[in-house]
């Protein structure tokens, strides 16, 4: 893990309140797995860093791509930064999806809103390993859609929107494909979604990626802990350093 000033290579809006940010620096060479994140210092005005998933890595350009949504003051301020500017980044954080231990024929990816970005890099890595990918992506509305073509180029895609403006109206759990051939699932999104997914896909081996407010982002402050069922292990895990990806049975959501 490093702290460095990365250079903004690209910064553009790709959907309603949604931006693509491509950053160049040494951190790009340190990414081990999809599902890892970087911790961004937006400016001196915001005391805490903001965790954002790595949505893609280009080893050739030495860049990582982030896809983020404006959720509050920090992400709003982030939109003001232009290509060529530098940004203070710590990363790559966390362990991500353990690509080495995954060995399936067909995988189901379920993402909601700002949980979708890490699944893109995951889908790329899975298909590169020859694993078939089916994605279910949930958005608020038509204007919020992003990276649809990118996901489609990697496999079957199902869309849901809260207002039904595209795809199935409802939540990701309302548009699950036939599950009989799915050997592993991967999901990332708001905690309430993760809970529903975990319940619906009970029995299928899975990986869930969890969001929690962070202090340090490196495992030192205990801001981001989750309890483990029956106090397994140490009785807790740290989302930032033990996760953000866990097996559903490892944590209490």
């Amino acid at each position: 893990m490093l702290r460095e000033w990365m250079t903004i290579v690209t910064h553009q809006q790709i959907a309603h309140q949604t931006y693509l940010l491509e950053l160049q620096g040494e951190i790009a060479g340190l990414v081990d797995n999809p599902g890892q994140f970087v911790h961004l210092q937006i400016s001196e005005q915001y005391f805490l860093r903001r965790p954002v998933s790595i949505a893609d890595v280009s080893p050739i350009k030495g860049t990582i791509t982030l896809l983020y949504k404006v959720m509050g003051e920090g992400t709003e301020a982030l939109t003001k930064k232009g290509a060529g500017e530098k940004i203070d980044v710590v990363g790559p954080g966390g362990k991500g999806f353990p690509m080495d231990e995954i060995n399936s024929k067909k995988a189901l990816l379920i993402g909601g809103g700002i949980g979708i970005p890490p699944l893109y890099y995951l889908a790329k890595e899975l298909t590169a390993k020859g694993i078939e990918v089916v994605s279910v992506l949930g958005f608020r509305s038509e204007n919020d859609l992003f990276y649809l073509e990118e996901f489609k180029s990697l496999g079957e895609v199902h869309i849901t929107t809260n207002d039904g403006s595209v795809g199935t109206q409802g939540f990701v759990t309302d548009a699950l494909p036939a599950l009989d051939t799915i050997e592993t699932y991967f999901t990332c999104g708001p905690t309430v979604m993760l809970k529903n997914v975990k319940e619906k896909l009970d029995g299928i081996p899975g990986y869930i990626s969890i969001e929690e407010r962070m202090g340090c982002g490196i495992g030192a402050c205990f801001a981001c802990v989750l309890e483990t069922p029956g106090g397994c292990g140490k009785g807790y895990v740290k989302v930032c350093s033990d996760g953000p990806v866990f097996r559903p049975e490892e944590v209490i959501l």
Partner: protein
Amino acid sequence: MIDTTVKLPGIHMKNPIMPASGCFGFGKEFSQFYDLSLLGAIIIKASTGERRFGNQTPRVAETSSGMLNAIGLQNPGVDGVIADELPFLYPYKTPIIANVAGSTLEEYSLVAEKLSKSGVHALEINISCPNVKEGGVQFGTDPELAYEVTKQVKKVSSLPVYIKLSPNVTDIVGLAKAVEKAGADGLSMINTLTGMRIDPHTRKPIIANQTGGLSGPAIKPVAIRMIHQVYQEVDLPIIGMGGIETTDDIVEYLLAGASAVAIGSANFKNPNICKELIHELPETLQKFGFNSVKEAVGGAHH
């Protein structure tokens, strides 16, 4: 050559800079970023008698020039700390200060006694943690209880004892005098100010515990004021902390009366901060006309 060494009871330091308790875990994570032997000392996270899970999440919230935290003293318990965490730190050439917390006098004594025999160099007694329901707070706000806990800990411990004071009090000097009388070897100042943030969307406090401890540059003027007051009235060395982010801040603390400083939440903004401050300090001291750290200590009082 600027002399940055500092000798405090139990801790002989290359420089006056150490990470603050709870903001550096037990060191392991930060050892990815730099060699911990660079540090003047290291204050580890609080230990309690038994292991504690701490509070519900969210445990942190951002504020203007600061943050709130309500971790709730999560730790593996004193035995776990001694068995699983301290061995990692021993090889580093850095004195270790163990932070002691508890809900009862007995718990403070027990933890202090065990840590005294563990190989650490000094104890910092956290009588001021605002984020746990019982104990902690009262020990830090009532001079008699503060006296009592200091007395008990001194009885069972052969190590120098630094008492960490809470800023959430009317009379910080009264507290400092009480623990001085009880035999404290030094003071740590300050712990966090109790605060709250409410999210207008959810209409609830952001932190699950409702209140949290405010740290960061926002509280620096309060820390400087309290250290300045206590330095005039109490004859104990002070480890100063609260919002330090620059070497200019460190000089301000030294001038107010701190003999050494601890860096807390700034470690989250910049994991290299301690290393960078250690590197820059000699130049900054020189800029302000000092030849040593000692020369600056209490300089605002002359």
